[in-house]
């Protein structure tokens, strides 16, 4: 093992103890920033989960005075009246559940946390290319979150136009009754876009320019590959959203009419711009997850990842094809149906690289030596559930079938299988996997497994039946399905789903407890608890400022598990080869 020395600094500056503020609040250390993002996005995950609770409460017992919303009394009467969720608040709850989960929970968890934390460690760099910019990225995201939350407290309530914000509903307060909330939503998203952008510039530059000697492109761990490609997607997709948001904000505030038809604006233009960003966005939300899962399945199987090059190519193919499919969200929107055909074709094709990834994960497990620790459980469950979400995507990709399934709960089921079954399960895997590295303590494995099994159970009980609701025609974003006769027979199932969902939300408290309890009481973690190969495990847990005592030198790919060359069943990337010429170590510093 290369480095476990106690005081380590590869940075050129003399080491002096920084003040508390510099160390934990305005820190430029990529690890501290990653952890800041972690706490922030877990907080938002909780908020998003609570909003899901509101949604499910209403749908389980619609407008039922005998089942007042627990805690509803704490909310103002413009949201919840005598325990009954009002339709305005329901729309805000759905909108904000989607917005918060996607932009303030999952995206920062995947990218803000792990691109920051992992990239420098996995490529053997002391920090990001632009540490100050990195700090600015977090300190832009945090105010964006505050602005977003502020929307709940202004007169008129928060935006209720769905996370997709289709104008004219979102453009004109006359139609929605929402004034300030809508504007705060837009401003917050613009600010958040800047944060993402600063992050992305940093990640791309860092991966290109700061790799340790020997860390060639095809020796990068798949997590870093995925995060790199994700950063490129963010870089190119987010500015398009920012542009569109600005136009919408002008429509809202100064009376332009880009998207409002009275003066010639085009509502569909928004949808094109939004989904041109939006579809790459959903791959932003899955690619890092796929990267983490690749790391964890390889380490958990004690086997090299099957088809490393194919995996890399698949990541690139998904990212590339992802730009040409946005219209599949607009098949029924009034978009030219011929264009729809083209989008159907590209959408179908994009299933192929995902197939490659799924089969390679399976092949990695084949003839392995599977250790089912908590991260591995989550990673394997990811594969199982991402497949369900992906396959339901194929239904809606078929234009005629989408005529019926569009904007029904079938799509809601699809979303949650890819985003919860996919991204969030991968995140639970990642959090439990890298927790020892981040905090120097192990999470409790028993609680971890309990959380895992209950989550798998309740997750599937909640979301699998939603496919049926959609197939039976239940629309999304409706406050009270019982208004429709053909939906009334489904109330029982809806109630069942709600009970499962509430149990699911409750189960997450086990995770929260485990997370905080282990911070203080967890067993101290060794440098490499999972006996994994990539460079982050060569640094101490937690790694000091500057990460490595000496710039690591990389001799091989990241997945040399059970190699015949080693006695152990793993072979770290920086372990010098037993024989052959001793490579020249890099100069620790050039000036």
């Amino acid at each position, binding site marked *: 093992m290369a480095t476990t020395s106690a005081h380590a600094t590869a940075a050129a500056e003399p080491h002096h103890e920084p003040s508390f503020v510099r160390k934990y609040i305005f820190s430029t250390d990529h690890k501290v920033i990653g952890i800041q993002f972690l706490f922030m996005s877990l907080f938002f995950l909780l908020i998003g989960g609570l909003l899901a609770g509101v949604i499910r409460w209403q749908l389980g017992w619609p407008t039922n005075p005998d089942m007042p919303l627990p805690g509803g009394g704490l909310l103002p009467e413009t949201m919840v009246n005598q325990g009954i969720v009002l339709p305005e608040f329901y729309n805000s709850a759905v909108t904000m559940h989607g917005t918060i989960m996607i932009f303030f929970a999952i995206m920062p968890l995947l990218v803000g946390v792990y691109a920051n934390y992992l990239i420098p460690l996995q490529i053997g760099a002391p920090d990001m290319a632009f540490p100050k910019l990195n700090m600015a990225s977090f300190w832009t995201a945090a105010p964006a979150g505050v602005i977003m939350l502020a929307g709940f407290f202004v007169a008129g309530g928060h935006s209720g136009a769905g996370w997709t914000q289709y104008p004219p509903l979102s453009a004109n307060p006359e139609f929605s009754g929402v004034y300030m909330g809508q504007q705060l939503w837009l401003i917050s998203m613009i600010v958040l876009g800047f944060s993402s952008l600063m992050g992305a510039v940093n990640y791309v530059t860092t991966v290109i320019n700061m790799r340790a000697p020997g860390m060639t492109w095809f020796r990068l761990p798949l997590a870093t590959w995925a995060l790199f490609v994700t950063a490129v997607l963010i870089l*190119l997709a987010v500015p398009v959203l920012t542009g569109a948001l600005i136009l919408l904000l002008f429509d809202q505030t100064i009376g332009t009419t880009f998207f409002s038809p009275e003066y010639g604006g085009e509502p569909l233009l928004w949808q*094109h711009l939004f989904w041109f960003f939006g579809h790459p966005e959903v791959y932003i939300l899955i690619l890092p997850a796929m990267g983490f899962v690749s790391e964890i399945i390889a380490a958990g199987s004690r086997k090299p990842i099957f088809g490393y090059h194919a995996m890399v190519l698949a990541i690139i193919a998904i990212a590339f094809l992802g730009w040409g499919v946005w219209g599949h969200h607009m098949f029924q929107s009034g978009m030219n149906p011929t264009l729809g055909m083209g989008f159907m074709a590209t959408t179908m094709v994009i299933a192929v690289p995902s197939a490659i990834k799924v089969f390679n994960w399976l092949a990695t497990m084949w003839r392995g030596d599977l250790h089912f620790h908590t991260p591995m459980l989550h990673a394997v469950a990811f594969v199982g559930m991402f497949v369900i979400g992906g396959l339901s995507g194929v239904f809606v990709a078929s234009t005629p079938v989408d005529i019926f399934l569009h904007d029904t709960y079938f799509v809601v089921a699809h979303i949650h299988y890819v985003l919860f079954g996919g991204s969030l399960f991968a995140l639970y895997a990642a959090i439990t996997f890298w927790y020892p590295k981040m905090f120097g303590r192990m999470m409790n494995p028993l609680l971890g497994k309990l959380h895992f099994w209950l989550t798998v159970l309740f997750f599937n009980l909640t979301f699998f039946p939603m496919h049926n609701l959609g197939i039976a025609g239940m629309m999304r974003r409706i406050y009270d399905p019982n208004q429709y006769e053909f939906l009334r027979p489904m109330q029982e199932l809806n109630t069942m789903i709600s009970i499962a969902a509430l149990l699911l939300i409750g189960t997450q408290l086990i995770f929260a407890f485990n997370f905080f309890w282990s911070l203080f009481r967890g067993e101290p973690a060794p440098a490499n608890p999972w006996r994994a190969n990539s460079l982050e495990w060569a640094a101490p847990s937690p790694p000091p400022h500057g990460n490595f005592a000496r710039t690591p030198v990389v001799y091989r790919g990241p997945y040399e598990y059970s190699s015949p060359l080693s006695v152990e069943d793993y072979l770290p990337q920086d372990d010098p080869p037993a024989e052959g010429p001793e490579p020249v170590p890099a100069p620790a510093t*050039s000036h």
Partner: protein
Amino acid sequence: MTMDSADVAVESTHKKPNYMAVFVGLAVLTLVEVGVAFLGLGRVTTILVLVGLAVWKAVLVALYYMHLRFEPPRLIIMVVAPLPLAFILVLAVLTEF
């Protein structure tokens, strides 16, 4: 790790382009553009010619002022990579209207 350390990297020793010549080219092209716009060549021709001239100017700026001509090929590839995306977006949506 400081950013300045990178500055030390030795500049590649390429021949300096004639910046003034590029400038004159840009100025002349601008004049031609304004002329073409009011020549009354017909809508489609005018648009094609003007777009062609604008792209020509943009390429001049990128190649010489931004030194793209003298950068490593991988940087050039990286830089032109997003352009197809821009085209896909605009062209696909244009078929709509």
